[in-house]
């Protein structure tokens, strides 16, 4: 089913944009922070199922949202990464600070 975000069992799942670059990051930050405020969930999932590309601009967005959720004791993970995004996670060290599925 198509969705931009969904809430399931106390978990907020955010669908990442098709290409997560600086351009998309600006919109995503605001949208994600609004949702995190509205739904004070225990865990946050970044869903990359529809994302074909991510550069270092995506790292800042993800780390920033992780801080916001973890501040409230929540936990974060990233799912459905393609090979390019996997490498970005690897090189940036994001893989060390969050669960990747």
């Amino acid at each position: 089913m198509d969705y931009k975000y969904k809430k399931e069992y106390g978990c907020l799942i955010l669908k990442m944009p098709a290409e997560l670059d600086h351009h998309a990051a600006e919109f995503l930050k605001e949208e994600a922070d609004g949702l995190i405020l509205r739904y004070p969930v225990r865990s946050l999932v970044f869903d990359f199922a529809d994302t074909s590309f991510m550069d270092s601009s995506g790292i800042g967005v993800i780390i920033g949202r992780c801080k916001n959720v973890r501040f409230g004791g929540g936990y974060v993970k990233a799912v459905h990464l393609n090979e390019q995004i996997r490498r970005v996670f690897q090189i940036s060290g994001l893989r060390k600070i969050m669960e990747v599925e």
Partner: protein
Amino acid sequence: MESLKNEMKMEFLAASSNEGFARVAVGAFVAGLNPTVDELADIKTAVSEAVTNCIIHGYEQKEGHIWIQCSIEGNKVEISVMDVGKGIADIAQARAPMFTTKPELERSGMGFAFMEAFMDTVDVVSEPRKGTCVTMRKTIGEG
């Protein structure tokens, strides 16, 4: 093997909406070399980082133009991304992983580190108030 030689230049507005255009255009240009999916992704990511730097740092999100020059010779690709913006005072510091002058924008400071990770060489020429030119090279088909 036939020796391939090709060149292209492009100029566009330093707008974030052009980041996707720039990396796809360069990707399409180098596609003639039959890069692997990974090699093509490497080049597109590196171009995206360089163009984003021009927009955020070179022009500090104000109006300006960005130039990309790309050449292919044999299985070697050379890509230069240039702005005539603010310039970099300390290039070594700018290239250091995790260093950023814009933490308030949640910049990770990984731009140059990514270019270096995904390309074979990255050269930076910059002068304060004159602008910056980043030249990246990669040999295709060497694993």
